[in-house]
């Protein structure tokens, strides 16, 4: 993604690129029955929207779902009496690099049934958007903002989709993406120049608090990705 010539440090900055073997080929797709009661229920109810599932790390059930139906599936998992996943522990993203889809990961826990479940939702790089679940779980509000900030995934319907850890005017992109160099896109000189050119007063005004506003246009994102529904 960089347009400057590759230098000696770029190998360091690029870091460990994943193997060329595509992620999908190495995944074992288990179509059979699972011990986890939610998997069978999900398959029965949503059919083809449940892409595959597997057991990871010994006893953890992971289900891959279609992004188009994610909100419907998550709403059902929260409200159905047999599921009742009332606690959204974590929302995060995984980027495997090499142009493979970015995956949004939902880690849920049911305080009623004392069960955990992990959903993963692959998003192709040219359509990094998914429905927000901040309306279902308040805890998802900040967690989705973090995924937006660090991975560039747009959450449709999020009430307040702003950057959260990086500065609001950060122009170098989304740091946890694999195409983001470890030391940033800009040179140290450029980073220093921008830091010195900042208007400090601006950071202590009220204008950055406008909630539900248009998310900012960020660097290295196609124009059609801009704009979440407020």
């Amino acid at each position, binding site marked *: 993604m960089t347009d400057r010539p590759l230098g000696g440090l770029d190998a360091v900055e690029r*870091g*460990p690129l*994943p*193997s060329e073997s595509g*992620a999908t080929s*190495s*995944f074992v797709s288990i179509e059979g029955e699972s011990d986890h009661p939610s998997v069978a229920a999900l398959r029965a109810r949503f059919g083809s929207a449940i892409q595959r599932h*597997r057991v*990871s*790390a*010994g006893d*953890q059930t*992971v289900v891959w779902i279609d992004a188009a139906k994610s909100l419907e599936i998550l709403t059902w998992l929260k409200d159905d009496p047999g599921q009742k996943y*009332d*606690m*959204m*522990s*974590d929302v*995060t*993203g*995984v*980027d*495997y*690099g090499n142009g493979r889809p970015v995956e949004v*990961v939902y*880690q849920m826990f049911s*305080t009623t049934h*004392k069960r*955990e479940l*992990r959903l993963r939702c692959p998003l192709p790089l040219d359509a990094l958007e998914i429905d927000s679940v901040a309306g279902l*779980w*308040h*805890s998802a*509000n*900040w*967690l989705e903002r*973090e995924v937006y900030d*660090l991975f560039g995934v747009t959450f449709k319907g999020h009430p307040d989709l702003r*950057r*959260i*850890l*990086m*500065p609001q005017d950060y122009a170098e992109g989304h*740091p*946890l993406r694999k195409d*983001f160099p*470890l030391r940033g896109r800009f040179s140290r000189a450029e980073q220093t120049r921008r830091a010195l050119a900042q208007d400090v007063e601006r950071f*202590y005004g*009220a204008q950055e*608090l406008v909630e539900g506003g248009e998310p900012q246009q960020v660097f290295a994102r196609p124009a059609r990705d801009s704009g979440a529904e407020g």
Partner: protein
Amino acid sequence: MATRTVELEVGRNPEMGIDGRPAQSPLRPFDVPEPDFGTEEMLINIGPQHPATHGVLRLICELDGETVMSVTPDIGYLHSSFEKLGEYRTWNQIVPLTDRMDYLAPLIYNCAYVMSVEKLMGIEVTERCKVVRVICMELDRIFGHLLWLGTTAIDVGAFTPFLYAFQQRERIYGLHESLTGARITTSATRVGGMMADLPVGWLNSLLGFLDTFPNTLHEIDRLLTGNQIHIGRTQGVGAISAAEAINYGLTGPNLRATGVDYDVRKDRPYYDYETYDFEVPVGEHGDCYDRYLCRMEEMRQSVQILHQAMARLPGGPINVQDTNVSLPSKTDCMSDMESMIHHFKLITDGIPAPEGDCYLAIEGSKGELGMYVVAEEGGTKPVRWRVRPPSFVNLSTIAKLAEGHLVSDLIMINASLDIVLGEIDR
């Protein structure tokens, strides 16, 4: 599960003291009509550098007089992208990054990270290692709670508990130092074991700490629990209902103060926590005072767990006896060709992981601490290393908790959530 409701014989009315005797509350005058001043809304920044924000946190408050209309936390001042750095390091090289997140309870983070990696790789650590890690984690639960106790007390104007608490913390610093060589940046764990076994005499030092610490805790308890100023500042402040707390993702003492008995040690036990005899304190009202009571009781329960763990500490090796995971001893390296090769391979290549992902949650001092690691087949570095930060999620509720309260209550609410900015910003 065994729980204990931490309601004491303290009246819930501000004018009622211990045993129901009326006490003069200096804070809330009664039956005084609110004077009608003309007020206008204003925007106040608390922080980023302010002692009451407990770190580099900026709270943007919209105030009407002294009433908080809305709070917007602004975080990220300490962001150093540990998770990105982790993708460039081998599994064991990430351990030092973990204690720099929660520098108030570093050993819990060290343990949680390696536990998740071991689960991903299917490594079962030795019995001795399990008990040693339980000791580390419970010791640091006390360590983290003591800092919270001291700084929260100082936020409501009580200076003595701060000094008492930090005196006790200093003793745990000493234990850290003799165990790991560092006071804060412990980095005590390795995949498959610990950096080193317990030093000679360390358990005696720990026992010495455990013998006298409850007395100090009792003294602090006497200073705060029935204290009218403390009660007036905390009861009914920042309350949240149980259902809302779950929906907002609160965990740890903050959630248990609302009456939900969710504790990862009981609900998803790890390291044989189900065999330890301890109770989970739960509150009733979900306000700052109940959070205080829960944490005080948790420290006492941690002392109980530490005593039990020391009694059952088995002998044997502390690291797994697998040359592909644990480093061989220096003597073996220098005298045995095989050991030297393993040592070389482990240092240069690292430990290969199977393809997959693993989310492991433990009960940290702040709440549910989850470590999520994703690996590709044979990967010696993570594709993704994610920390589910309890303070981050807990802090996101502050806008809800503080709305309609006074600015001074906002300071108390912020303190009672027990946040650590190093982990929020990562």
